[in-house]
């Protein structure tokens, strides 16, 4: 738009997406720019909207298994975890310990695979091509392990109300043990390759500064708030499942920038490895699904069940009406709130920094659109 009185005041509109590679899916960002500087960035969402909440309301509880993994395709097991926990809470159903251990173990594997995908994609956004090849090499092993166990590589319907649908076998446990050992030995290589790289540091250091208060008022969670110095992790602050039985830490960095968010995720991989090792070592004997799950799941009352997904706090708000399907199902995805602060955060920053900031959020668009 050319300024009538003073042509040097010219600004222009740049349309980023919905097919841009660094928007990670069908997200469009309308940018008002002054040269290389972003005056305002407005995310336009909803291109992949499928009304999962309505599907949840018209289907029975068990009919929603397939939906959960189609929201956050990079880390679907925590999404399934929150759903089954919420319904079990409404039913007052006791879940065998072994089932909860398996759920925690597979969720953590999924968290690692999600972080590896983010690691590769984030660096790809910044112009580094090699890291994604290393990350996908390791991620592939997780997918093979989970495929053997669940029957699916991406869209798992593994968790059941009352437990999981299939017990873990020795092949899975031995394979997982070998994998975490391998990944732990490779983490120093990842850090050598990227963390200290001077080009990488120049792109992410002091970029996208999110103070604690901004994270609180926008509801940003996960690595975003942990990169701002608040050790908020649902697994520790509001423990669910069997997480209180594991010894692990919540990585937290106080720099508030994109590098801090990068470091949080890299440190989280190590913590997830610790949880998996403990889960394998202490895996209790017993049932993998509750022996007496009622055939007809009639639910009433309300519950808000939160879990820590790969991208932050995920919540299911269920209201039952005494029938087999919920009267209201609200899904609170973490990336939705994380992305909503983009407009305030990116006012006045460089266009290239915007890409670094969005990459550091680890966005998964189908989870935002639902």
């Amino acid at each position, binding site marked *: 738009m050319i300024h009538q009185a003073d042509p040097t005041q010219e600004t222009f509109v740049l349309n980023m997406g919905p097919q841009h590679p660094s928007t990670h899916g069908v997200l469009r960002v309308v940018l008002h720019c002054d040269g290389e500087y972003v005056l305002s960035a407005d995310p336009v*969402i*909803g291109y992949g*909207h499928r*009304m999962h*909440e*309505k599907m949840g*309301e018209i289907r029975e509880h068990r009919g929603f298994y397939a939906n959960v993994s189609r929201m956050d395709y990079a880390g679907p097991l925590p999404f399934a975890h929150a759903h089954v926990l919420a319904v079990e*809470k409404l039913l007052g159903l006791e879940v065998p310990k072994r089932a909860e251990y398996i759920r925690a173990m597979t969720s953590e594997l999924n968290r690692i695979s999600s972080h590896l995908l983010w690691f590769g994609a984030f660096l790809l956004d910044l112009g580094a091509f090699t890291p994604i090849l290393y990350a996908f090499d390791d991620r592939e092993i997780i997918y093979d392990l989970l495929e053997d166990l669940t029957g699916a590589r991406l869209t798992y319907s593994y968790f059941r109300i009352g437990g999981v649908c299939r017990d873990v076998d020795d092949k899975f446990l031995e394979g997982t043990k070998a994998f975490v050992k391998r990944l732990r030995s490779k983490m120093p290589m990842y850090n050598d390759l990227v963390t200290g790289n001077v080009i990488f540091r120049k792109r992410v250091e002091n970029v996208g500064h999110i103070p604690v208060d901004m*994270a*609180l*008022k*926008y*509801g*940003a*969670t996960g690595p975003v*708030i942990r990169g701002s110095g*608040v050790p*908020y992790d649902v697994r520790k*602050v*509001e423990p669910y499942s069997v997480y209180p039985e594991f010894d692990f830490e919540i990585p937290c960095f106080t720099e508030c920038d994109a590098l801090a968010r990068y470091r949080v995720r890299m440190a989280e991989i190590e913590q997830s490895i610790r949880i998996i090792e403990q889960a394998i070592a202490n895996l209790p004997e017993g049932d993998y699904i509750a022996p007496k799950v009622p055939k007809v799941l009639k639910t*009433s*009352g*309300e*519950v*808000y*069940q*939160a879990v820590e997904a790969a991208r932050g*706090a995920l*919540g299911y*708000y269920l*209201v*039952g*009406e*005494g029938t087999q399907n919920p*009267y*209201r199902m*609200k899904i*609170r995805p973490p990336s*939705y*709130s994380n992305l*909503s*602060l983009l407009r*305030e955060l990116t006012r006045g920053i460089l266009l290239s920094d915007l890409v670094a900031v969005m990459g550091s959020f680890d966005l998964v668009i189908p989870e935002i*659109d*639902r």
Partner: protein
Amino acid sequence: MSAKEIIQKLSAVQGLDVCEADYEKTRCNVDVLATPETFREFAKVIREAGLLIESLTAVDAVPMMVVCHFTSVYEVCRVVGRVLIDRENPVCPTISDIYPGANWHERETRDFFGVNFEGHPDMTPLILPEDQTDFHPLRKSEEKLKNLSELIGRFAPAREEAEVSE
């Protein structure tokens, strides 16, 4: 800030109906029923207490309920806030100036339920198509519609009260 302190602070506000919720059953610690007049005051107190906004949505029943969840980032303390509004003329005050994170949640609630948030800076559709302003997919049909007192425990005994406010 612990649940006890939050209850104490909220009890000081006129017009809020504050009670302790059963955490084991609902995973919430504090249950607050606000009126459209006191809703913003409630949000201000919660914001001062340093709580994080988790979600804001509505439940289509009679009367319609706008419900929002907040949580502490340091301890187990989840606050649920409710406002009962008229289903035929759903208007609720905005809290998007107090909690900017509520901005998108309110727009989404407008998309799905047709709730008009008074004072909201931009009520254009967020998730549904831009021209979709009169279709609200999560509204219940007449035969599916239930009374709020049949759904939510806290409204069950105070049935008359809910009907009066409607």
